[in-house]
């Protein structure tokens, strides 16, 4: 009996009814993914084990020097810590604000913090929200100081080594540090100054000039 009334409706009335039901159900819709998410723990465990989620300080230094604009470097510490020193081209998004930050899911994101712990936790938060191209700076700023800013070089190096060392000296100077000898204070203790680094036009942003208009009508 309940099907009889439905068959009496015209096509248009049936469509209207369907629209009304779908519209009514949509009252409860959430389109931003929400704050409660689902994780594939096996997938994440695999990534962690294979260490596919890291970027080393020297790799990052290379990326910055190569003026690569296809990723975003995010400093997840507080804004005061960011103001004191941050890796050139980094943006500041304190870890608490990460879920609401204007980060697009199809961007490549590199996270760092002091020792790395907050960055690693932030990595999990972003992966949970569906970001697929997220990396952490291995060792955080501590490692950045050790490897990039204040590297220690062996005294007697072979000629090949000399070339590499010369390059690393350049890198260190570029980012505002300087190499140290083995018996100086550990890198962690050295005070940092924000370097005045000139990276030209592409500072972490894809250069808009000259790019063809792609979207819009």
């Amino acid at each position: 009996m309940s099907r009889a009334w439905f068959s009496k409706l015209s096509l248009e009335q049936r469509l209207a009814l369907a629209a009304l039901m779908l519209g009514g159900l949509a009252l409860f819709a959430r389109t931003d993914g929400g704050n409660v998410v689902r994780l594939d723990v096996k997938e994440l465990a695999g990534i962690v084990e294979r260490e596919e989620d890291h970027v080393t300080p020297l790799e990052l230094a290379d990326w910055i020097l190569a003026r690569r604009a296809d990723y975003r470097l995010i400093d997840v510490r507080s804004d005061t810590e960011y103001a004191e020193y941050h890796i050139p081209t980094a943006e500041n998004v304190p870890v608490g604000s990460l879920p609401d930050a204007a980060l697009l899911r199809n961007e490549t994101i590199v996270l760092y913090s002091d020792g790395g712990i907050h960055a690693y936790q932030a990595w999990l938060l972003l992966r949970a929200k569906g970001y697929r191209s997220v990396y952490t700076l291995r060792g955080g700023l501590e490692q950045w100081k050790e490897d990039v800013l204040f590297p220690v070089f062996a005294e007697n190096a072979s000629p090949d080594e000399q070339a590499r060392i010369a390059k690393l000296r350049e890198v260190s100077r570029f980012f505002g540090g300087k190499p140290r000898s083995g018996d100086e204070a550990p890198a962690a203790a050295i005070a940092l100054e924000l370097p005045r680094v000139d990276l030209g036009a592409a500072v972490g942003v894809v250069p808009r000039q000259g790019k063809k208009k792609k979207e819009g009508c």
Partner: protein
Amino acid sequence: MASTMHEAVRPLPRSDAVVQAVVGRPYLNPYLAGIGLGLILLAAFVVMGRGLGASGAFSATVAWAVDAASPERAAGNEFLAPYIGDGSTHPLKAWLVFEVIGVFAGALLSGLLAGRVRWTVEKGPRVSVAGRLGAAFAGGMLMGFGAHLARGCTSGQALTGGALLNAGAWAFMLSVFAGAYAVAHWMRWQWR
């Protein structure tokens, strides 16, 4: 014939029966056509992350033409320059250009299937061809102007922006209807 007499009496023949008598099969139920259009639009969202459009294809074409005639003019024009970019891709190799070519093909296909393709000028029976074409050109000019000022036309803004609940697009839609209704009375002569 009865249909011609009817047209002389009332300026706008409305019923599909008249259309059928004149040419081809009756049009599709507007709600079904709307669902079809809506699904195409949804496909664009899902596959491309963008909506439909048409006015952008016209600007790309004009930019290409101006660039071909005088590259400095095109590069120097703030509106056209983004359609040329740095010159690494051809201005006509644009998403909207290919989409509009598809619109041509799809409309032709539908028309052929329904027997609705014929060389004609849409106008009222007592209007001259020149008058109608003059109005068409003038209307097109206004449309071109308005569409670029508003950053879109009915397909790009009204449909796409409407579906995405874009605030500016909804304001745009209201303005379009307002502008059209305001002037409609003075354009009746085309359909008499």
